[in-house]
């Protein structure tokens, strides 16, 4: 018990990345929610840099193997929304050449305790499937004390 408290205190003091990097949105753009949640979760804009979002939004016909193309007006509106709500503090931790949130240093650090078998399990399938372990993901809730990792793969 004391050891856990000590580690917790050290973690808090050292300012390691926390779920606070998922910045709550002020106003939600309806087209962002409707379009980006059509195939997967509308991922929190604060998890990537404005530059990464811009790159992604300019190649939607080649969106990780799918065609996610939009009408120009929708594309412009969503791009602006993403840029306005993109990662601000420590942008280098929220960027990846692949443009995948799951490849960013921040994500990798946050999920370092998750066994690789968990990602491949039938309940989770992929790291892009946030809601498998974060029940409140669709509402932007990634609080650690509400995480529920299915079956095997949870440490300690």
């Amino acid at each position, binding site marked *: 018990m004391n050891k856990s408290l000590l580690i917790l205190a050290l973690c808090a003091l050292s300012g390691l990345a926390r779920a606070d990097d998922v910045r709550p949105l002020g106003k939600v753009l309806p087209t962002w929610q409707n379009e980006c949640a059509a*195939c*997967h979760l509308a991922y929190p804009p604060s998890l990537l840099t404005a530059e990464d979002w811009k790159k992604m939004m300019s190649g939607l*016909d080649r969106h*990780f*193997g*799918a*065609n*996610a*193309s*939009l*009408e120009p007006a929708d594309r412009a509106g969503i791009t602006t929304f993403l840029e306005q709500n993109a990662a601000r503090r420590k942008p280098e931790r929220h960027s990846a050449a692949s443009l995948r949130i799951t490849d960013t240093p921040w994500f990798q650090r946050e999920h370092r305790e998750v066994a690789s078998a968990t990602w491949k399990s039938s309940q989770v*399938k*992929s790291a*892009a*499937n946030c809601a498998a372990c974060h029940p409140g993901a669709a509402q932007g809730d990634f609080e650690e004390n509400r995480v529920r990792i299915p079956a095997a793969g949870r440490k300690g």
Partner: protein
Amino acid sequence: MKTLTLILSLAVSAPVWAETPAELLAAYKAEATQAQPGFTPSAERGRQFFLAKRPVNDKMNSCAACHTENPRQAGSHVITGKTIGAMAPAANPERFTSSAKVEKWFRRNCTEVVGRACSAAEKADFIQFLSAKA
């Protein structure tokens, strides 16, 4: 009467005004007939089109890959696992009620699965198959 018929048939042949599966189907049929006089939508052709396996995208290799083989059942996205509502209007009343939405998804999914835009005839067959009563 002739003028009214003309106006009505013009309205029906413009997809932008369609809001029911029957209207959308009529619009695609009218468009297909321009290229192919005497065209009639076929549910069987639509069924084969829906189920056909294609080499364009190895995960999304058919419509059924995401929409399942039974359009009255919910499907799931073959990559993300997200639930996709049933395609058949009989099972899901919101299907084919917005021409803008339908055109958007035809544009995306035809490019991904078929490797090109779908023709009006293919779209008509597709809706005919999904609207089948049986």
